[in-house]
Structures are given as structure tokens and as C-alpha cells.
């Protein structure tokens, strides 16, 4: 049987229990670890733990902590702070009769703000497998990241081991877990590599599970990330976040939801892009052959506004519960606005939506691109007041977007683009079955909605939206 006690001089409770520690030191095999002064307590031999290695490995959160070990050195029990009865029970001897019954302990130096990740980087370094790159004193860290090709064009946060360790506190998953292979180089993707790229992107640790779920969704075969990257089309991955986690991490689903200014929206979408770039090797004008790209290829991520909506959310439509948090990945172009400030009934507003949706890709393009219609609260209110469900709106739009083939064939309207002439007599849908998606987001004032058109290759020949639960 043996004991260890962890103390620091800068703690009134540790000062209080010095006589007890000295008594135990005399009676038992007790090892004393001091976090801040090897002369404390005075007059007894003390092990220097100012580097906090012992405190870290023993996961000490409070000083004093008294730990009891068996003869094999296995921990049997511990007490924290000073509670006379507990110390007496742990040691089986009368202790500290002249001391108060109870005094709370102080915070261990190993859990000071910023310290856990420093200690993890120092003492748990073997849990990370990535190559370490040495940046000289003469190099600027951010410039070094640019020079190595890690940036999307904007500055990145240099991924030090401390920052990566801090990022990994956002998940319980092990750093070496492989979650799939990233195109185009088909490189196995670990949680650790995702965390490093999340650091680059500027994520907080609490965003990491959303980034991991986004990468998992992007790597599903039906999402077709390789083709989406390599296409000459405009598209890139859009992340739509649903559920309580989107609110817990402060994502923006309201005013300017598709714009700048929210850290979670901005960095989660960016982290996904950096994973494709850095792990997969997918770079613009390399395998990424897009003619234009779109601004969302820096980052494209927002949350659906589920509060007080009359509609079920995108996640619920996909079969998840309201309490689940999910990401849905969509192969997305940029955003096209719809302005309708005069409609006050759902029939009129739906006709506006349909007219705007008709031009996705090309007015004659059908069953090629999917679409996300982002309906603002002021537009949604019109459907709410009329009692329209989301499915009612979809049915209406699909009806309005069933088009006479004669309008769509090559040459119609003096436009060479179009579908084969043999389809002239058919009634044809603008969107493939299931290709029209609706979410609610945006600011509370403004009778605008938004169209996020999809990649021209959808369904089995291209990309299908993929929803994953965030774990």
C-alpha cells in the first residue's frame, strides 16, 4: 500500500493540510508532488512536478489530491480537497483533529486555461501520427502555410500540436480512426487529419463533430465528391446543418445566413474544402477543372431555421428525429435571389418561385440539376397562414414546372440548346423526382427567397444529397 499527494504552494487548502501530509509521510509510503515549488511542503522530500507531467498523467483537477495505490501500483481510490472523514477513511488512521472538517481544494495547475492542450501536446504527442514540419525562426508561420500550399487563398491558422490537441478535445473519436478515402488522390482520411484541417480553417473544437460528419457525408459514394471536384461545372459541396447542435454552436440560420460573419458557418464549410484540398489533393486548375467555380468554394455552410417554422425540417424529411443533429451535403452552385414583395397568397408566390426555378441551369434544362429553395420567414408566413405544408408547396411547384416538351426542344425559341426533338409532345418535369428540396432560413424582414441550384449531374449519374447524423 502506498500513497501520493499532489499539492501546490499557491493553495490555502494545501497549506492547511501540511501537518497531515507530514504525519502521513512519517507513517506511510507517501510520495509528495509539488506543482509550483519543490520546497513546499518544507522539511520533507518533494518530487518536482512543475512540468506537470505526473499531474497530467494522473488527470489531476484539484489540489490537494490524495491517491491510494495497491502493492502493484494500481490506483485504488482518491480524495480531492480536504474532507477530514474522507482522508481518514482512505488512510484508515486518525488525521487532522485540529483542522476544520472541510475545505474545498484549489484548481490544479494542469487544468489552468490553455494548459491541458499544452500538456497533451507535450506528454501525449505519441497519440498523433502526422509528420512534424519545422518552420524556422526567420519564416512567418502564416506565410509558411501559404508556401506549402495549404491555403485556399485566405490566411490559415498554423496547425501547431497544441492547437491540434485542443481541436481533438471536440470529439471522443480516436485520432487514428479512418473514416474513408478522400478524392481525388484516394487518401485514407483520419480524424487527426480532419482536426488539423479544422485548425487551419479556424474552427473551434466544438465544431469538429460537424466537420467530421460533413467529411463522412462527402465521402459517401452517392455524393460523388470526386466528380463534383473534377467537373467543369460551377458546383462545390454545400453543408446544411439541422438540429439542436446547430443552435448550440451558434450557427447562423437567420439574417445573412448565406453570407459572411458567423464563425461556425464560415469555418465548418471551409474545413471541408481544406480536407479535399490538403488530404485529397484536389486543387483548382489541377483535378478541379471548374470553369468558374463559385464563391461558396471557399466555404458554403448554413443552418436551417427550425424555430417557429410551420414546416418539418430537411433532416426530418430525410427520416431523422427533431432531436437529432445532422448535416446534409448538396452539390451546389452559387445563390440566385427571388424577389416577390407583392404576393399574399400561396398560389401567386408559388408561381413566382416556379418562374425563377425554371431557369436553373438553362430554361430548357430538365431533370439534370437538383435544387435547394431557401424560403425566407416572410415568404414562409404566406404558406403558414394558408395552411400549406412543405409537401403542398413541392407538389404545386412540380405541377407548375411540368413543361411542354415543345418549349424545351433544341431550336425552340430560336435557341440551339435543348432536348431531342422527339420529346416535343411530352409533358416533362423540370426536376427529377426528389430533386426539389426546400429549407427555411434568412432574416425576418424581406420578401425574398433564394435558389441554390445543383450540379448538372444529379441522381445516379452524379450527386445525390447525403444526410448524416452528427455524432
Amino acid at each position, binding site marked *: 500500500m502506498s500513497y501520493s499527494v499532489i499539492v501546490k504552494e499557491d493553495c490555502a487548502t494545501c497549506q492547511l493540510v501540511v501537518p497531515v501530509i507530514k504525519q502521513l509521510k512519517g507513517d506511510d509510503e507517501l510520495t509528495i508532488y509539488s506543482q509550483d515549488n519543490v520546497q513546499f511542503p518544507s522539511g520533507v522530500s518533494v518530487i518536482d512536478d512543475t512540468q506537470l507531467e505526473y499531474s497530467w498523467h494522473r488527470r489531476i483537477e484539484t489540489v490537494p489530491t490524495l491517491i491510494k495505490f495497491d502493492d502493484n501500483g494500481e490506483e485504488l481510490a482518491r480524495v480531492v480537497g480536504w474532507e477530514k472523514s474522507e482522508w481518514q477513511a482512505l488512510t484508515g488512521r486518525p488525521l487532522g483533529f485540529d483542522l476544520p472538517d472541510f475545505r474545498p481544494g484549489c484548481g490544479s495547475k494542469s487544468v489552468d486555461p490553455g494548459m491541458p492542450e499544452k500538456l497533451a501536446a507535450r506528454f501525449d504527442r505519441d497519440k498523433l501520427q502526422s509528420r512534424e514540419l519545422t518552420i*524556422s525562426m526567420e519564416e512567418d508561420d502564416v506565410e509558411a502555410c501559404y508556401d*506549402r500550399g495549404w491555403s485556399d487563398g485566405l490566411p490559415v491558422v498554423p*496547425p501547431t500540436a497544441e492547437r491540434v490537441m485542443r481541436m481533438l478535445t471536440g470529439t471522443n473519436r480516436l485520432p487514428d480512426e479512418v473514416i474513408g478515402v478522400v478524392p481525388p488522390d484516394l487518401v485514407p482520411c483520419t480524424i487527426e487529419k480532419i482536426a488539423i484541417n479544422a485548425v487551419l480553417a479556424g474552427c473551434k473544437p466544438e465544431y469538429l463533430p460537424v466537420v467530421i460528419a460533413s467529411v463522412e457525408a462527402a465521402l459517401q459514394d452517392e455524393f460523388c465528391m470526386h466528380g463534383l471536384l473534377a467537373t467543369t461545372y460551377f458546383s462545390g459541396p454545400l453543408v446544411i446543418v439541422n438540429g439542436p447542435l446547430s443552435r448550440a454552436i451558434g450557427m447562423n440560420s437567420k439574417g445573412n445566413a448565406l453570407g459572411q460573419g458567423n464563425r461556425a458557418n464560415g469555418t465548418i464549410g471551409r474545413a471541408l474544402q481544406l480536407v479535399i484540398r490538403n488530404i485529397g489533393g484536389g486543387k483548382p486548375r489541377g483535378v478541379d477543372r471548374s470553369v468558374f467555380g463559385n464563391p461558396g468554394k471557399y466555404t458554403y455552410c448554413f443552418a436551417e431555421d427550425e424555430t417557429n417554422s410551420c414546416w418539418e425540417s430537411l433532416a426530418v424529411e430525410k427520416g431523422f428525429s427533431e432531436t437529432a443533429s445532422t448535416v446534409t451535403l448538396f452539390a451546389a452552385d452559387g445563390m440566385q435571389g427571388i424577389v416577390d414583395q407583392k404576393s399574399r397568397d400561396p398560389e401567386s408566390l408559388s408561381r413566382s418561385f416556379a418562374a425563377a426555378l425554371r431557369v436553373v441551369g438553362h430554361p430548357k434544362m430538365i431533370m439534370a440539376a437538383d435544387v435547394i429553395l431557401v424560403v425566407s420567414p416572410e415568404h414562409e408566413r404566406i404558406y403558414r397562414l394558408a395552411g400549406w405544408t412543405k409537401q403542398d408547396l413541392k407538389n404545386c411547384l412540380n405541377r407548375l414546372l411540368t413543361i411542354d416538351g415543345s418549349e424545351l426542344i433544341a431550336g425552340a425559341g430560336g435557341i440551339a440548346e435543348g432536348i431531342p426533338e422527339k420529346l416535343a409532345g411530352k409533358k416533362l418535369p423540370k426536376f427529377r423526382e426528389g430533386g426539389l428540396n426546400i429549407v427555411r432560413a434568412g432574416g425576418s424582414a424581406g420578401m425574398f427567397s433564394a435558389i441554390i441550384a445543383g450540379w448538372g449531374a444529379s441522381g445516379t449519374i452524379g450527386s445525390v444529397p447525403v444526410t448524416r447524423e452528427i455524432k
Partner: protein
Amino acid sequence: MTILMDPTSERAPENRQPLPRPVDLEGKTVGLLDISKPKGNIFIDRLEDLLVQKGLTTKRYIKPTFTRVAPVELNQQIAAECDVVIESLAD
């Protein structure tokens, strides 16, 4: 000194590599940069003779002074106008 964790697939070498060199100079425009060291022009003149004899296009540039790095504008001009550049160091 800072240690950074590699965010990539680690397929590239640890140290940064120079840009790939051209296999040959055929059809290339060769920049000749005199850094304004004494007699640098003699070396550059001779190089230019040899390159022109091979049918290559050359362009001449001069740094204002060898004591300072080349002005950004000069670097940009050379990068825009040439495929490769030879910089002389003479005395």
C-alpha cells in the same frame, strides 16, 4: 522555431521543392538578369551570344543595385515575360 502538424497526405517531400525545371529550352524566352556587379555584363553578353546562336529568344534585365533584392516590379516583369531566367553573379 515552430513545429507544425502536416495537414496533407504527406506524399510530398518534407522540405519544399523547387519548381520543376524545363526539360529543354526550345521555344522558351530566356531572361538574363544582370545584378549590377562589375563585369556581370560581360558574362551575360557571352551567354546571350550562345543562346541566340541556338535560336532562342533572350531578354535583358538589370537590377538597380546588387546590394538589395530586386524590386517587386522587376520580378513581376521577368515572370510575365520569360519562361526561365539566368542571373549572373560576377566580379
